[in-house]
């Protein structure tokens, strides 16, 4: 079969948990970029919509010995055997082989939420309510990301709208593939500590590929076999141990 698509990439991230200060800029940048509406008044952390969510985890010690790690967690973009893809009755999500992105198409979703149960990272969010945009903010929406209504599940797609823009630019400039610097997800761009590194894991020379091979780089719930393309990096032993454990609380 003649392959006319651009060469395959495997987009992934390495997030440095020692640099992350837990400021939350990435969470807000993600919401603004992807047209995620502000919370309904009744929304809580269980019913909210946070494609990228920064969790606060402590080492369980008392005040003086306390250490905290802030963990930005969005869709981990699991490898080929993605739990969510395997359960969706609508084919509303699939793994894009050209980029490795686990693509959620909310317009196809019927809202059964099976995928939310299947996702071990709780990275999928359901629109319990219709989006409530303060009057006037409709003119501030990002035209590169489709809006959603209530009743559908959505999640991080690695800012694929920005990938579209990068591809359009490459086409206009007559280039075969995109410039890596043209495709930067909103969370990566916004981090004041530059804690998130993004790039093509299939490109051995890329920073993200090199970081992913570090001995201090790990993944969450590695025993499940999800092979996520989002990895984390920490020099702290207790953080690495925490990531491998199934939470008891």
């Amino acid at each position, binding site marked *: 079969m003649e392959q*006319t698509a651009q060469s395959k990439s495997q987009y992934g991230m390495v997030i440095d948990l020692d640099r992350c200060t837990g400021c939350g800029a990435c969470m807000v940048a993600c919401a603004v970029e992807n047209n995620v509406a502000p919370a309904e008044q009744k929304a809580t952390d269980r019913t909210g919509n946070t494609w990228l969510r920064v969790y606060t985890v402590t080492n369980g010690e008392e005040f003086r010995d306390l250490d905290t790690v802030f963990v930005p967690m969005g869709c981990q973009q699991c490898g080929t055997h993605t739990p969510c893809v395997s359960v969706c009755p609508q084919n509303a999500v*699939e793994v894009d082989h*050209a980029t490795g992105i686990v693509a959620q*198409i909310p317009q196809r979703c019927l809202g059964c939420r099976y995928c939310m149960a299947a996702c071990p990272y709780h990275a999928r969010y359901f629109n319990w309510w219709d989006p409530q945009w303060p009057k006037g903010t409709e003119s501030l929406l990002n035209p590169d990301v489709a809006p959603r209504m209530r009743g559908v599940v959505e999640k991080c797609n690695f800012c694929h709208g920005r990938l579209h823009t990068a591809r359009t*630019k490459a*086409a206009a400039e007559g280039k075969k593939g995109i410039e890596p610097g043209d495709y930067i997800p909103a969370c990566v761009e916004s981090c004041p500590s530059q804690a998130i590194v993004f790039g093509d894991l299939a490109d051995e020379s890329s920073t993200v590929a090199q970081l992913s091979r570090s001995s201090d780089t790990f993944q969450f719930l590695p025993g499940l076999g999800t092979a996520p393309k989002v990895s984390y990096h920490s020099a702290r032993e207790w953080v690495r141990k925490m990531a491998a454990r199934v939470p008891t609380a």
Partner: protein
Amino acid sequence: MSLKGPILFLCGVLASLAIGWFAFPAALYRTEPQPMPFNHAIHTGEQNGMTCDMCHEFTENGSFKGIPAVTKCADCHSAPIGSTESEKVLVEQYVTPQKEIPWKVYSRQPDNAHFPHAVHVKKAEITCDVCHGPHGSGSSLPEYQVNRISGYSRDIWGKNISGIPSQPWEGMKMDRCVRCHAERRRDDSCIDCHK
């Protein structure tokens, strides 16, 4: 034996068919006039020999400007250069007061569809008429008919109510994109075309 039953039945079938194939399309679509007449042929024909991209431009980073803003018309028509009534309307009602012409767009797609003209026109080198037909050589704009229910132009489904295109450039729904992509053996994913 009475044939009344079967005949009545047949009448019912025929009535339905007639309504479905003739009355329904007429009722489903509403014709809306374009704000003013526009003659593509004068611009692209032998007289002026313009190409599509002289007005329907790309920006530097590849995004497509679509239907040109009135400033593009003003580049030539800041004052009437011909003698037609339509040009007079253009200059007096739009160019001079710097008012955008509220054209009705035949190929308007839903918000969740991402169609990058740059990738198709510049990279795949598909000419405009492949998707838009002989639109650019027409001497008047086709009738704009809008589907009362969906709100989209009739050209999206196709002129033919059956959905079977009578011309290769008819219809702009997803299945047409998918068909052409399959013909060109592209390995696509949802994320390539959906926002």
